[in-house]
């Protein structure tokens, strides 16, 4: 008879211990999920607050172009992270596949565009295109792309 309360006591203690353990596991998973969600949210926020505008494309000659872009968003933009595609309209190719070069620079001489700044991306290709109209497409770090046309 005396063993019954002892057994029940042991069972209760065991139940509490298991419940605490499970709670601990659940809580740690919740914290983990919260951390992941925070990271995703901050990445999404950075993407949403990044706004770049393709202001103007100048064809200096048939192998040299200047693309002017403005940081109209909130966050600074690293111009070296902008991908440049160039070619006839509709068949632009990455600049690296054409053996060309890209040299981005702001008025302050930096590659980082602060809020409100306009920067120039100097684009040079090795040989001119067999087209009277050249299209330059810029792919921004947040995945948005814009293009502009000019005639050398």
């Amino acid at each position, binding site marked *: 008879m005396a063993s019954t*309360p002892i057994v*029940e*006591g042991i069972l*209760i203690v065991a*139940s*509490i211990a298991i*419940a*605490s353990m499970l*709670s601990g596991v*659940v*809580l740690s998973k*919740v914290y983990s*999920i*919260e951390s992941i*969600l925070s990271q995703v*949210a901050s990445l*999404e*926020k950075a993407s*949403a*607050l990044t*706004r770049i*505008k393709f*202001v*103007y494309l*100048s*064809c*200096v*000659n048939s192998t040299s172009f*200047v693309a*002017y872009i*403005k940081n*109209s*968003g*909130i966050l600074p933009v690293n111009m070296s992270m902008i991908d440049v595609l160039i070619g006839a309209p509709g068949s632009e190719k990455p600049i690296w596949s054409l053996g060309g070069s890209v040299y981005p620079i702001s*008025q302050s001489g930096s590659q980082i565009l602060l*809020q*409100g*700044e*306009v920067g*120039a991306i100097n684009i040079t290709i090795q040989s001119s295109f067999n087209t009277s109209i050249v299209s330059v497409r810029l792919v921004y770090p947040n995945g948005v792309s814009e293009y502009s046309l000019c005639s050398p």
Partner: protein
Amino acid sequence: MGFSTSLASALLMITMLEIFIMFVGISIDRVSELSERLYSANLIDSRSLMDRCSVINVSISAIASGVAIYVNVSNNGSMQWWDYRKVYLILDILFINGSKISYMASAASLPYIVFGDAINPGIADPGEILGIEYSLQGAYIDNISKVRVIFSTQYGGVCVG
């Protein structure tokens, strides 16, 4: 035994409540952050639509050291005054020999004047006209065929003249 059972039940209930409150808190935080993000994004997108300009006049004059290009731009948006460090002038200059050069400068780095300066002295407010002078050293006015002016406003508006 009755007391122990009650205690165990209470502990379990508290734990469950804690988990529930945490889930609710995280959900509210995420919804709040999402709303803030969407509001910020909409605000950014609307700024370039409201910050507008018009190139009213472009004129070229010969000066002793070269050529001066005068550009008058109207702030006809509904946004606000322009920060001269954040408004930019881009010039595409075509010469009669077919060569072309392209320049960019902020208004703050060039001589400027505000016409109709009635609201805030020295500041181009909406409704006022900003006159900017760009000097092209060593150039001859007779060698210039065409000049294209692109003006970029503070919040992403663009006008061409």
